[in-house]
């Protein structure tokens, strides 16, 4: 497998502000790669540079085999993009929006018509094709934008915050499409998101980005193992067995585990990999005559990774404010 995108010290400065700070990334053909980070981390700026609509201040990137500085036009033929903000003409129908885009990519006639109908069917909007977009819901507009980005069979698909401002049910729906596109069309997908669950569910590999810098890179599991602490909660029956012996043995499971006994009979154990450790917990309980009433565990999340690396959470207050504004903007579009 080759590389779909290679960036080389890709940098964007706005005055003194380093929006994107010497990023070096390699995205393999056929993978879903996620840029995860809070709002203002430089995700959209990076995507805009890779999509050749923003000139880098420094450095460059190879996208689909071409240099973004030297051959933007060749790249434009090979990429599809769904922008973060709505970019559909609301006064036109779904079909008309698709048709105009098809012509912009040099498609025409019967072939264009067939592709449009096929894709509208793919995103379940065929019945809505002759309805003006202003009557669509947010989720429908997103699906139309996704269909539109696939019209010219791009090699690489950019999705900038594909589910921002959508309700949970619609988000899950959009996720299904993204997974289907990867599976059925074998496209390389670069998506940005500030939702942990989204990155975890969709991405083969994730780069965590903050203040324009990549601060961690790996598969979701690799990243979580990096901070490494899953927590197992065990509730035991108080009367029987040797509780102190049980706790001593639990402490020796692995070197950096910590065990706490909380009232009334809840024990929490921090470990590297909870599923691997749980059988041992049962064994020890057996040896010490402890009866386990309830056991559950929580895995380290990508948010914990971000917290460990930056001391902040991804979804801080300013993040939710931007979300709020975006949602309001979308609502305004719908009404206009």
């Amino acid at each position, binding site marked *: 497998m080759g590389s779909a995108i290679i960036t080389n010290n890709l940098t964007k400065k706005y005055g003194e502000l380093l929006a994107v700070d010497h990023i070096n990334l390699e995205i393999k053909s056929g993978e879903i790669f996620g840029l995860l980070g809070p709002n203002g981390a430089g995700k959209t700026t990076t995507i805009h540079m890779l999509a050749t609509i923003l000139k880098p201040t420094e450095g460059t990137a190879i996208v689909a085999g071409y240099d973004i500085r030297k051959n933007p*036009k060749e790249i434009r033929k090979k990429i599809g993009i769904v922008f973060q903000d709505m970019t*559909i003409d609301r006064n*036109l129908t779904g079909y008309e929006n698709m*048709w105009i885009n098809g012509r912009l990519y040099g498609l025409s006639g019967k072939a264009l018509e067939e592709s449009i109908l096929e894709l509208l069917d793919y995103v379940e909007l065929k019945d809505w094709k002759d309805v003006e977009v202003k009557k669509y819901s947010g989720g429908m507009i997103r699906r139309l934008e996704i269909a539109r980005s696939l019209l010219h069979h791009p090699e690489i698909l950019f999705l900038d915050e594909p589910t921002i401002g959508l309700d949970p049910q619609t988000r899950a729906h959009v996720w299904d499409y993204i997974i289907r596109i990867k599976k059925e069309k074998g496209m390389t997908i670069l998506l940005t998101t500030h939702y942990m669950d989204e990155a975890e569910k969709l991405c083969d590999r994730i780069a965590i980005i903050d203040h324009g810098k990549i601060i961690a890179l790996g598969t979701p599991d690799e990243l979580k193992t990096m901070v490494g602490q899953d927590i197992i909660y065990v509730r035991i029956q108080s009367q029987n067995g040797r509780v102190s012996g049980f706790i001593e043995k639990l402490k020796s499971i692995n070197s950096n585990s910590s065990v706490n006994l909380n009232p009334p009979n809840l024990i929490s154990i921090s470990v590297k990999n909870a599923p691997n450790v749980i059988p041992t917990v049962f064994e020890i309980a057996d040896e010490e005559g402890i009866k386990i009433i309830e056991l559950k565990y929580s895995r380290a999340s990508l948010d914990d990774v971000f917290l460990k690396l930056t001391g902040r959470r991804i979804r801080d207050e300013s993040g939710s404010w931007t979300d709020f504004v975006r949602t309001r903007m979308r609502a305004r579009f719908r009404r206009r």
Partner: protein
Amino acid sequence: MGSLLDPFIAMWYRQVKRFWRAKPRVIGTFIQPIFWLLFFGLGFSAAFRAGGRTGVFLGLDYLSYLMPGVVLMTIFMGSFMSGISVIWDKEFGYLKVVLVSPASRKASIIGRSLGDATIAIIQGLVILFFGYLIVPTINLLNLIPFLIVSIIMSLSFASLGIIIATKMQTIEGFQLIINIITMPLLFLSGIFYPVSLAPLWIRVIALANPLTYAVDASRFLLLGVSEFSFIFDITLLISLSSIFLILAIYQFDKATIG
């Protein structure tokens, strides 16, 4: 060639289709020029006749004098507003869709401008036929050359709108800019009074305004009188329009989103 024709058609189609959808806007654009003709034209026509000053207006009754100008005013406003509406595409993201596509930007922007011109000229024609009802002396045999003059004029102001829109960073002050630009262009164009009678400084501005030559040429075509020679009008109109169009294409070609 196909690669240039495609974006041209796409953008032309979009402008025409959008306008056709917005029915209240279609009707709204006819109201203002009709008001100008009826309330302003008829009133001043009577006033000037009472004062015996019709000779001032190239020997025409004031209403006849005003008519070609009001038709061009309609086309001017339509094309300038459509051109400057690029700012909305910029604000609401549609511009990115065009910029990220491999389509020729030159072809896209010319297609868009001609789409704007098409709509503006249809609006102008409606006003022209309305004007014909109240000023039947108009020579409609020259309709085709009049349309050509209108298209050139329309392209220049669609271009001016696009230049301003690509330069503007935000939509704040949008309405202010429209007023600051359209009012002087309209009043310093010979639509309402002969430019040659105005003070020198007004004449200087009017002579740099493509609208002046379009108005004068139209008056020649429709009523047979003009301040300048027709050839002079056409030469200046084409020259100024070309400059605007080239500037607009250049601006749009190097446009990025930030």
